């Protein structure tokens, strides 16, 4: 029966796209619709159109609501096609671009996924010589682009001003400056300005000859630079060839975590950790550090040592190598350290050429010079430690010089181009010098932070995905940063600011992309680097993401003759005592030095060591912690000299006594919900307040006072030990050689009773005797293996997953309540070979390790997501068939069918399922409990955040279960791609290893293998063939498709306590 469909006139609301959809039920989430029916390309909004980097192609969209809320039987929906077709864009298909992210350690090569001009996901660039996975920082940096709390317009002394006014202020400033050749102008830059920035600075210097440059980074490595140049010569720097390093001694150098050294990517190190054949050789890592770091977790031998004594350790090593120059430093070293180091150094010497000593980048120049000499003596230089002749950084004053110059009134105007937020992170003296009324600050930054708010002129910076720039990688390879999208809030890059100062750009004036001066400036730099502005090479550079053969040449591998001078003025060392403790300031895994404070993904991702999210705290070693009678979250007052800080304490196993570690970057105010909580009072506590000068990271003589109040910490893992359960299995290389399949024999797995069932279900490979099994001939069969020997626990996979799968952020309060949404849970356990006073072999439920045992415990990590069990307990209990099994072996989850009984979550042995307790996507995180009464303007997904969402993944609503699906959208995408090329042939199988999951792509250690089990050439089959391969909780009989490869350690027999290493695993149940 046919009906006339008369639609009421669509309401002419001036509403913007997102708003109109946000009013709909969240299932009808706008962006899904994009992915589903007519992706954004076809129906661009004006916002998006403006945002598109191809703006100059005159692509136009309309902002009429997609769905009128007209109350007819069927809501009216519109299709808005482009009027002009857009080059490259095929509506519904993502576009990939190669770019790089600038970071303190140089370029991070990237591949950016964009959907109709919206960057949505980042991945490493495999073509790049240093390409690999991504750190969680790089992975999460895309969220900074869409951060709704980003600085959005220029501020003059905290008051919003227009860009035009900002331009006037600048011109006025420049005219004033020109009068005295810029004598009163200082420019504050990072340690490594980009090539273009360097060029423009030089240019600016020509117009203001007497202006001065200063470098200051909240967390800098001045000591290292000075030490290295003293030893290797100015500008020369080490480049670590991890692939060649067979023996590594790390002196408080978290080179696998937050303190990367210039060198080959981490995968070169982890590749040697995974052994699948007995009698294989394996590298060995010794580690001395005051707290647990990811590096310490990977180490074969680790000894907790106060940071104050690290130079002493270096001196001891030097002595043993016959370098007497630094023996003064060795005085304080305790005897135990000597006997620990002796066999280690012997081992290093045995591997001359392939042995290297690494020192944390924040240690003194003297110590660094000494370590350079040590590496020279070990014959590392030119072998596993290249010396590269980098182009020298511009001559610039230090933070101390800046303070002096400001104090003396010499510098009146300071232009901050760098990442620093001096009013928050600089030492008190410098900060107060900066905040004198006489000093004019011009600040460029992404966040409206302390400096921005009080600067005479603050300019919103463009995100690196929004502007042209260039960076050199650690090995000097030159890359161009290309914008993916027009600046969301019309921010400008540092280059553009310089251009404006020079007068080649006018702020606020609409830029014609073709003649964009920043673009031209970068091309000019490219010309100088590449030798000529060759369009073909330029395009290749853009396509590949780097310029071929642009790495730095190697320098001389001999020490400077006068390197010992660098040792002069080494500060005297003192071992900390319980009266005078040491405070160690370290970068934070979530905020780094404070620049990522507003990144919700990073804030919510728990610290890999302490499992703390959304805050920082003082890490106190178990012995001291219990001696002080502290509880987690109890406040302590730390006093160093005349400076003090009150913050909560957190028990940190593996942390040395009488030492307190404080992660930096927190305690910033008025940055919005994420950065400084809903009351704007700030998240966490500002550790910078404790340091006296900008290069002081280890502060001796700290007093600790225990207070009564306590503070709620969002710790995501209550249980620090495995209770004897064989979750993570570990063995020494020796054990492995003796019994390669030790992992399979661990605990109850060695005596699993026969599974007797009177029917044969859909498990295993289909065959004559197993007719119901999975079809390996005509279907793909997906599987995953995670190599715990390689896994660092860095949580890059967690962030990648969050970015790929539209996983909501739930906020500190919900994390405390145990409702973290991230699909991958990075379990961190501490294990020791003796448990409790009774020195039990295994930790049963009733045994707690003593403080001493915890101090020397091993740390192991294990990422756990849905294991895609072939016999999945979660499926059978769902009353509505919302989760069922697919014929390619996935544990499918149909969100729209789920009614949320949560029975599956209960019946999942791995606790891999997550439930949407609230409308995390729709309702403001600080008003979740208000339900429908939450503030209307805060309700609904923030517009800018919607732009980040992956259109191929449903945005889940309240009341449904969600979980890892092996990135099924990618798998289905790959199958369809194959269909497109298969057409009328039989060849349905996707090319071997052509499809990667987000976590696998992100993993910098290449610990995750994934692929088609039915494809015998696929890598996953090789990996799963390893004798170390075991299934988690195999005893339960779930037959997971994800398996783990047992962890190997390679202890040195002569080391003290070598026998204890990995001993605990043998006694697991």
């Amino acid at each position, binding site marked *: 029966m046919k009906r006339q469909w008369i639609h009421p006139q669509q309401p002419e609301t001036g509403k913007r796209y997102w708003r109109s959809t946000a009013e709909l039920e969240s299932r009808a989430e706008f962006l899904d619709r994009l992915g589903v029916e007519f992706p954004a390309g076809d129906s661009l909004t004006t916002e998006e159109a403006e945002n598109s980097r191809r703006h100059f192609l005159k692509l136009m969209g309309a902002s009429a609501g997609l769905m009128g809320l007209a109350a007819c039987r069927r809501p009216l929906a519109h299709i808005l096609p482009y009027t002009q077709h857009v080059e490259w864009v095929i509506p519904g298909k993502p576009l990939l671009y190669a770019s790089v992210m600038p970071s303190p350690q140089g370029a991070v090569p990237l591949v950016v996924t964009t959907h109709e001009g919206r960057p949505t996901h980042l991945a490493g660039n495999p073509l790049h010589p240093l390409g690999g996975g991504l750190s969680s920082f790089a992975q999460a940096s895309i969220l900074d682009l869409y951060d709704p709390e980003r600085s959005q317009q220029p501020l003059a002394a905290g008051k919003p001003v227009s860009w035009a006014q900002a331009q006037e202020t600048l011109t006025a400033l420049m005219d004033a400056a020109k009068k005295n050749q810029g004598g009163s102008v200082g420019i504050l830059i990072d340690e490594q300005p980009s090539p273009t920035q360097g060029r423009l600075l030089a240019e600016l210097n020509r117009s203001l000859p007497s202006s001065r440059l200063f470098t200051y980074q909240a967390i800098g490595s001045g000591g290292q630079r000075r030490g290295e140049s003293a030893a290797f010569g100015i500008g020369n720097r080490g480049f670590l060839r991890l692939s060649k390093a067979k023996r590594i001694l790390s002196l408080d150098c978290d080179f696998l975590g937050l303190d990367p050294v210039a060198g080959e990517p981490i995968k070169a190190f982890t590749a040697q950790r995974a052994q699948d054949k007995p009698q294989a050789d394996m590298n060995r890592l010794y580690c001395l550090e005051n707290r647990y770091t990811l590096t310490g977790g990977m180490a074969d031998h680790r000894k907790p040592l106060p940071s104050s004594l690290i130079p002493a350790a270096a001196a001891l090593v030097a002595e043993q190598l016959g370098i007497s120059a630094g023996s003064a430093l060795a005085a304080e070293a305790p005897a135990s350290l000597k006997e620990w180091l002796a066999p280690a150094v012997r081992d290093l010497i045995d591997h001359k050429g392939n042995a290297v000593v690494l020192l944390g980048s924040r240690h003194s120049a003297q110590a660094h010079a000494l370590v350079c000499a040590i590496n020279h003596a070990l014959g590392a230089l030119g072998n596993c430690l290249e010396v590269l002749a980098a182009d020298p950084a511009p001559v610039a004053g230090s933070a101390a010089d800046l303070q002096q110059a400001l104090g003396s009134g010499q510098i009146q105007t300071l232009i901050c181009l760098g990442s620093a937020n001096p009013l928050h992170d600089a030492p008190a003296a410098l900060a107060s010098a900066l905040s004198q009324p006489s000093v004019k600050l011009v600040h460029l930054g992404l966040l409206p932070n302390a400096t921005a708010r009080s600067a005479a002129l603050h300019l919103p910076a463009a995100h690196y995905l929004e502007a042209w720039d260039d960076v050199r990688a650690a090995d000097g390879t030159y890359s161009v940063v290309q914008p993916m999208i027009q600046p969301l809030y019309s921010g400008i890059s540092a280059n553009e600011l310089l251009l404006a100062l020079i007068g080649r750009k006018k702020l606020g004036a609409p830029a014609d992309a073709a003649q964009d001066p920043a673009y031209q400036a970068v091309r000019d730099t490219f010309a100088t680097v590449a030798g000529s502005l060759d369009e073909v090479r330029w395009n290749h550079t853009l396509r590949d993401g780097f310029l071929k053969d642009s790495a730095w040449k190697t320098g001389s591998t001999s020490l400077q003759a006068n390197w010992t001078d660098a040792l002069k003025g080494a500060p005297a060392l003192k071992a900390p005592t319980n009266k005078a403790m040491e405070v160690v300031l370290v970068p934070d895994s979530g905020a780094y030095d404070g620049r990522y404070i507003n990144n919700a993904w990073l804030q919510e991702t728990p610290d890999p060591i302490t499992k703390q999210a959304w805050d920082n705290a003082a890490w106190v070693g178990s012995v001291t912690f219990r001696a002080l009678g502290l509880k987690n979250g109890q406040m302590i007052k730390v006093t160093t000299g005349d400076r003090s800080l009150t913050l909560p304490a957190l028990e940190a196993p593996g942390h040395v006594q009488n030492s307190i570690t404080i992660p930096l970057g927190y305690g910033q105010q008025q940055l919005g919900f994420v950065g400084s909580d809903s009351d704007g009072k700030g998240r966490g506590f500002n550790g910078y307040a404790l340091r006296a000068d900008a290069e002081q990271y280890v502060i001796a003589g700290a007093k600790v006072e225990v207070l009564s109040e306590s503070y709620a910490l969002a710790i995501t893992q209550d249980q620090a030990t495995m209770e004897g*359960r064989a979750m993570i299995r570990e063995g020494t290389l020796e054990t492995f050689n003796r019994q390669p399949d030790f992992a399979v024999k661990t605990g109850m797995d060695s005596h699993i009773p026969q599974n007797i069932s009177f029917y044969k279900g859909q498990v295993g490979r289909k065959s004559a005797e197993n007719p119901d099994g999975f079809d390996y001939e005509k279907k793909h069969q997906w599987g995953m293996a995670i190599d715990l020997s390689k896994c660092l626990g860095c949580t890059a996979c967690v962030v990648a997953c969050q970015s790929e799968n539209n996983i909501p952020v739930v906020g500190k309060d919900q994390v405390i309540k145990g409702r973290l949404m991230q699909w991958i849970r990075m379990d961190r356990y501490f294990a020791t070979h003796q448990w409790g006073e009774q020195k039990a072999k295994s930790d049963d439920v009733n045994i707690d390790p003593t403080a001493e045992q915890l101090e020397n415990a091993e740390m192991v990590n294990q990422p756990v997501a849905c294991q895609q069990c072939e016999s999945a307990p979660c499926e059978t209990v769902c009353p509505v068939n919302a989760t069922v099994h697919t014929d390619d072996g996935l544990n499918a989850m149909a969100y729209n069918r*789920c009614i949320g009984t949560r029975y599956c979550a*209960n019946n999942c042995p791995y606790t891999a399922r997550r439930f949407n307790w609230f409308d995390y996507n729709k309702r403001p995180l600080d008003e*979740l409990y208000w339900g429908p009464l939450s503030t209307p303007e805060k309700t609904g997904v923030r517009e800018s955040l919607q732009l980040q969402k992956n259109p191929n993944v449903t945005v889940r609503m309240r009341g449904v279960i969600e979980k890892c699906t092996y990135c099924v959208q990618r798998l289905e995408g790959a199958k369809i791609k194959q269909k497109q090329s298969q057409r009328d042939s039989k060849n349905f199988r996707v090319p071997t290893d052509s499809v990667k999951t987000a976590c696998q792509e992100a993993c910098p250690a290449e610990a995750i293998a994934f692929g088609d089990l039915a494809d015998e050439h696929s890598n996953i089959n090789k990996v799963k063939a390893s004798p170390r391969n075991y299934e988690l909780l195999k005893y339960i009989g779930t037959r997971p498709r994800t398996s783990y490869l047992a962890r190997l350690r390679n202890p040195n027999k002569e080391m003290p306590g070598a026998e204890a290493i990995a001993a605990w695993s043998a006694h697991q149940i």
Partner: protein
Amino acid sequence: MEAKTISANPQASGTPRILEREPLVLHQRSYSWITNRICGIVENKQPLYWWFLFVPSVLLTGLMAFCFTYLISTGVGVWGQKQPVAWAWDITNFVFWIGIGHAGTLISAILFLTRQKWRTSVNRAAEAMTIFAVMCAGLFPAFHVGRVWMVWFLAPIPNANAIWQNFKSPLLWDVFAVSTYFSVSLVFWYLGLVPDLATLRDRCKPGLRKLLYGMFALGWRGANRHWSHYETAYMLLAALSTPLVLSVHSVVSFDFATSVVPGWHTTIFPPYFVAGAIFGGFAMVLTLMIPVSKIYGLGDLITPKHIDNMAKIILLTGTIVGYAYSMEFFVAYYSANAFELQTFQLRGLYGPSTWAYYFMFGFNVFAPQLFWYRPFRHNLWVVMFVCMCVNAGMWFERYVIIATTLERHLTPGSWRTYEATWVDKYTFLGTFGFFMMLFLLFLRFLPVIAIGEVKGVLPQSNPHHEDHGNEGIQEEDLMNYPDRHVPRDAAAA
């Protein structure tokens, strides 16, 4: 012929004989006395007690409604659940109420089949209690889901999506079991009511009441044509309900027994749950009936014998439950399944919620042991005390099984301790109000004791009982009965 051994006047009969059976109705009441006494409750004004209980329970019902509204409008997060404790108070309360809802059908069905005549004076109230308890129980599974507006997905309706329910899911078995149980109990209860509704109908003046009673009495005429089919039907329903009542709690226990969670995955669960249900159910029956009989002066109908019998059943089932508790431990130890063993160690010895376990054990296993001693079974205060313990203990049992087990799931990395929120607590409290409200309305409008059936067990109702003329002692005029029944009888206790 037991009736013969009853002498008109106990004093006259000299020393009571050993074999003498206590009568089911004391003081040789007559038919009309029973009719008047029971119908009186409905026909006369309610005592103050009734109002004292009714008003608060209505308020609590409102509280419950508010909590559910908040829950639905805001999200399940307002409860205390978290990973890995996805079920806690919600399902605990569900199982608790369902358990309560077992005594009624048990009394009406199993005791009927086993010819336990003493059931007649308690079965009506017990059945009513069953129905109300099941209503309370049903609320929780219905509202604990994340998207309650999608709950119709549970119904096997043909649909254009070609997708159906998963009949392999214990949760769906639950849906069928509980709804069946509710319907059958309702039918059973209603059929039992029909003759008594006729009685009420015949006693009241034309008007709304007569209309309603008349309609629901269906025009009952007590004809043999009615009675003979009626008795067959009653017997059939009893025969159907007996396996049903056993199946329902077995199915509920399948929710846990068929899972892989250590501490849930146990073959002992079905009998253990059924015993527990009878246990808790009888406790609740006594908790309700003792005050009722005192307040409404039904002491002659609900005699010490009745209470004694039920106390014995509580003692028996309580001991079975205790056996189950210890057997779980033994099996965990004996199974050589380390996860299982650890689970029970964490439950009872080292875990974060051992307190719940101790409450459970004390209330359910130790408290009922008082009933070994006859005087305790006959002291109403002691009986009430033990029943209260059991009511609480059974709730803790479910809490231990559900929440504290999930707190210590298989992967230590995800272990977390559960805390309930105010919404959890008030919702549960509210269901008590709802339950009480329904029960009080039942007292107000329907005969609390099965009139017909009680008459059926009187000696003189035996057609071969020849001693004519004895129609029992005619009681004082009953017209002024309502205004004096409360204090005196209460004091008598």
